[in-house]
């Protein structure tokens, strides 16, 4: 009996230790939020106060809510991220299905290219893309960033992650639907897609996260301030707010909040996606 109790005590001391590790590790995230709730005087206190008491919302009203540039940048990011999310799903779902199901001659080659694409340093493709897009008058438009984000960042990942989901759908199901008179497209749409919904959620969540955090294409393919995503706007503020760290952390927190919310809600889809995207195939 005492042995059992000792095991249990060990288990809970592991929980305690784990909580401590996570708390130390995530301290920077706490520090970001804490700084964003401090007054200008408090952030220059030596030694720094670890808890913002009393918390003030001034940095948010100053740097975020009453700052038309940030508000516009947030809207731009919403447009770019949602656009990327939709385009990714529309392109990736049928492509992953085809690479899982159909006997295409180039399946192996296609998967190889997609995997390599994922590892490509985005900045290296930004240069030629800038030249090509300017020849077509595409530079400085939402479309430029959405096209680049989708094709180079989210689409390869989405196809690689989605393919195993399609592989796991029994062939008999769609064959039965086709015998009942559905076309292949009909069977794909009504039978197969609903079965891979978890995969679509994973891929959709990642497409949004990636596009929201994307910086390189926003920086290089957009030249006017009115179209910039939040990441580029935040980078600009780093110079402007040089000593107003509370304001900078307020903008940073505002940029992080959608990510944290999506992560909290879809956590189990996202954790699976990290391993799948990195190692599968």
């Amino acid at each position, binding site marked *: 009996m005492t042995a059992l109790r000792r095991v249990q005590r060990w288990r809970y001391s592991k*929980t305690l230790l784990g909580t401590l590790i*996570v708390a130390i590790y995530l301290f920077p995230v706490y520090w970001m939020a804490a700084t964003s709730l401090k007054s200008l005087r408090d952030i220059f206190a030596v030694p720094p106060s670890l808890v913002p008491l009393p918390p003030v919302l001034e940095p948010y009203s100053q740097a975020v809510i009453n700052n038309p540039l940030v508000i516009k940048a947030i809207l731009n990011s919403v447009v770019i991220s949602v656009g990327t999310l939709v385009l990714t799903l529309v392109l990736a779902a049928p492509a992953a299905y085809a690479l899982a199901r159909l006997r295409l001659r180039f399946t192996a080659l296609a998967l190889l290219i997609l995997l390599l694409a994922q590892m490509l340093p985005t900045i290296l493709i930004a240069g030629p893309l800038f030249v090509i897009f300017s020849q077509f008058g595409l530079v400085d438009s939402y479309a430029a960033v959405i096209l680049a984000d989708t094709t180079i960042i989210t689409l390869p990942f989405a196809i690689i992650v989605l393919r195993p989901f399609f592989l796991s759908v029994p062939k008999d199901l769609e064959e039965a639907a086709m015998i009942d008179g559905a076309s292949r497209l009909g069977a794909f749409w009504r039978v197969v897609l609903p079965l891979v919904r978890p995969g679509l959620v994973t891929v959709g969540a990642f497409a949004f996260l990636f596009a929201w955090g994307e*910086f390189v294409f926003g920086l290089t393919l957009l030249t006017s301030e009115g179209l910039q995503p939040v990441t580029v706007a935040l980078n600009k503020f780093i110079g402007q707010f040089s000593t107003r760290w509370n304001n900078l952390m307020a903008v940073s927190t505002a*940029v992080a909040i959608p990510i944290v919310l999506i992560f909290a809600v879809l956590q189990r889809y996202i954790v699976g996606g990290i391993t799948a995207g990195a*190692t599968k195939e």
Partner: protein
Amino acid sequence: MTQPQALENKPGGERRRTLAVEPARLGDYLYVVPALIFVVLILLYPLGYNLYISLHEMSVGNFRTGTAPFVGLEMYSEVIADPAFRHAFLISLLFTGGSLLFQFTIGFALALFFNRPFPGQGLLRAALLLAWVLPLVVTGSLFRWMLNGDYGVVNFFLQGLGVLNKNVFWLSEPDTALIGTILTNIWVGIPFNMVLLLAGLQSISPTLYEAAKIDGANAWRRFLYITLPMMRPVMLIVIMLGFIYTFRVFDLIFVMTQGGPVNATTVLPIYVYDETFEFFHFGQGAAAATLILIIPFTLALVYLWLIRREEAA
């Protein structure tokens, strides 16, 4: 593989049997065509175009018109001879090596810790991943503040622990800027390493450990003689992926130091950015990009080969 045409048109039950062995028809390709068009136009074409640019003298004056003169490999020899390029290469290796060493060891330690179930394990493990999903621009601006010389919390803690006795201006001194960015990148990379290594640990059969326990092997010996050898392929893959992903880091450094002070943190991707978008040396930028791609590309092929061998085993 050639199926008689007549068979395909037979109705009902006949069709069912043929479905599984039916060769791909033209219509099937329609599912991949949209994605394919995007990949060819926006990924493969620019990559090829990068090669074209690297062989031409492209400037602000002629990049829209496509009339840049052909200069052969001149851009390549210019880049290779450029001391700034060589310096950036060295910085890239230092940044990647320093980041990997600590990301990997800390990630491995955490993976071992989270390998055995305990109450609240799943939640805690997921919480660690928060750092990985945070936009790098956010992480960069946050660590700029934490590493600030006068009011940064890092100096405060290090002085409290007795490691430092005066303020260090991490990101504005050439001697410490690289350390500051590496520190930040280690923080970002730990969860990624942990998740992949944990997946590897959990695929080791528990019976191996039980057998070793019965034979009287202690925890250290079990780690040395079971965990490490069994983890070898996974460890290789994680290090390889880590190298590829760390070698290309741009956002974080750009936000934290823009490559400065005095090029102390100019890694290769920053060098390419400067050449292309600051100096508008499109040719040199493209040549450098091609040269840089060789390393991760070779590693990626090795990685694929490792994975294939892993799956065959």
